[in-house]
């Protein structure tokens, strides 16, 4: 077995600024070797350790869907040294990638179900992956109704506008956007995510709800979903943790006896309730 800490090398193919304040960018990476791309066999909801050689490494959710062939995408918020390094990247720069890591969304178990996707802020990246995957013509028939509720602080923070516009044009997906406060020119919903979920009231029968966002949004949304009769097994979360290795060895992402990097990052609410409240 090879050294698990050595990344494969990719180059930056495209860079897209995702928000008005320009602190969130999506990097599209192309593998240097076709063989490395072929062995990077991922599903929506997984993440990778991506690095700038000489600066450092960090775990980032994969924003692209495996159905978008030829490259992979990561949406990165500028926070520390490594993520700032990614923001300074130019096309052609070399990025190291280790992965895919983690369990990902249970796309097999979700088959035949109505899918409710609730996202807040920039935690939308692996949800983008999931929705694009489900909407792909090869997979759309495997899933029933899709409802997406996506909230942001203001209109400038809404990610992936191009794909959101595409989704809105389709009749096999319901997309509800909301922002916290009213703004001129905003024709969608206004208000926090949880009350909007209550208003949209997706049916719990034969449904799976996927919830990603800041802790307070998750907490309030789960309360609403419970009111709508969603059971703990029907609610999925993806957790974030500080990580170094991504393979269950560096120690820090444990919640009880589980490691978020290898046992997660996706957990059902039923699983989370059995774990210590340390996340």
């Amino acid at each position, binding site marked *: *077995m090879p050294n698990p*800490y050595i990344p494969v090398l990719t180059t930056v193919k495209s860079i897209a600024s995702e928000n008005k304040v320009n602190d969130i960018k999506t990097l599209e990476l192309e593998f240097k070797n076709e063989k490395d791309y072929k062995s990077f066999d991922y599903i929506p909801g997984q993440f990778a350790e991506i690095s700038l050689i000489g600066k450092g490494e960090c775990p980032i959710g994969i924003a692209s869907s495996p159905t978008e062939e030829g490259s992979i995408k990561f949406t990165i918020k500028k926070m520390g040294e490594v993520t700032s390094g990614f923001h300074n990247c130019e096309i052609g720069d070399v990025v190291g990638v280790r992965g895919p890591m983690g369990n990902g969304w249970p796309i097999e178990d979700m088959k035949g179900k109505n899918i409710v996707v609730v996202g807040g802020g920039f935690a939308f990246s692996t949800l983008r992956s999931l929705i694009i995957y489900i909407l792909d013509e090869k997979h759309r028939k495997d899933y029933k109704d899709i409802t997406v509720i996506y909230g942001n602080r203001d209109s400038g923070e809404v990610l992936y506008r191009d794909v959101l516009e595409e989704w809105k044009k389709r009749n096999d997906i319901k997309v509800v956007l909301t922002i916290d406060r009213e703004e001129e020119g905003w024709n969608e919903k206004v208000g926090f995510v949880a009350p909007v979920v209550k208003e949209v009231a997706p049916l719990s029968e034969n449904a799976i709800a996927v919830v990603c966002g800041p802790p307070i949004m998750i907490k309030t949304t789960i309360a609403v979903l419970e009111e709508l009769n969603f059971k703990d097994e029907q609610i999925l979360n993806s957790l974030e943790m500080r990580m170094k290795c991504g393979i269950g060895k*560096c120690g820090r992402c444990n919640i009880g*006896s589980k490691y978020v990097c290898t046992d997660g990052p996706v957990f059902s609410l039923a699983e989370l309730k059995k774990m210590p409240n340390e996340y």
Partner: protein
Amino acid sequence: MIQKILMKNEIGKFYIELAEDYNIFAPVNEKGSIVFKKILNSEDIVLDYFNSKVPPKEILFPKTEVLFNYTIDGKDIKIEDRDDLNEKNIIFGIRPCDAHGFMLLENFFGFGAVKDEIFLKKRKNTLLIGIGCNVPKSTCFCTSVEGHPFKKDDLDIFLVDLGEKFLLETINNNGESLVKKLTWLTDPKKGDIQQAKELSKKAEESFETKLDLSKIDKILDPNFNHPIWEEISEICIGCGTCSYLCPTCSCFDVIDETDQYNNRGRRIRIWDTCQSCLYTQHTSGHNPRGSCIERCRNRIMHKFSYYPENYNTLGCVGCGRCVQLCPVNNDLRTIINKINEIENKKEEKVVA
């Protein structure tokens, strides 16, 4: 099993014969502390010692370790893997508790879909020659954690200190093929084997500490939010000594070290500790274990609840380093007794 006698004044011969093929690590005295070091001169080997301050885990899992090297030439980046993992090592003089620590580390690094090949390769190329503890320290408690001062299972060759000489015993095929090369070793007398047995019994009886760990995982599991954690962490200063010096702790941080011209460097791992606030702190500032209470709890839960859950064995080898070297004397033995008390107190209530 082969039994032989190794005279203490033949350690030099023993060293010279094996040093050709192996890096030999053994206890030496460095500035008043016992440490395991690569031996360049057999006279440096110390045979009269309790145990090393830093466990010999650092031989296979060093404080800082290169994961790979890299060179940067503009957009041309090259990564070089390590090529030194196939060197053969002998760790001479390791104590049974620390050898058991290696077994637990091997469990951990070899667990899951992706394994830590760096550690596992080195471990595979390392022979352990251990010496039984005739005189355990007052802080030792291996017999409480399924261990024993003369436990042989985790070793390749086991030695018993008989004064002027060692009784040598091979534990597995690796140990046996090594000993077969040392044709000059003499055979033991009946009295030597008898003496070793007596020393083992005497050592076992000399333990001052006997902890009840039979139910600890069952007690810990439902008491995650018990007020006892506040009491246990009250005096802790979060220095991390307990985990750095633990033979089974293996957490690490990863950073890139690049030279000043930004054209050459290495990605390294460095020992880290769950007792540090930054260990779990997210970039956003959110910290899942933001207080000392949570961090102290994690250390205890990891060794005595999470580890048994994942591997069906305790994550502590009873070496007593954390007891001996904690700067505020937050004694693990007292902590374990306090945890056992939770259950006793409950039973008292039921009776009342």
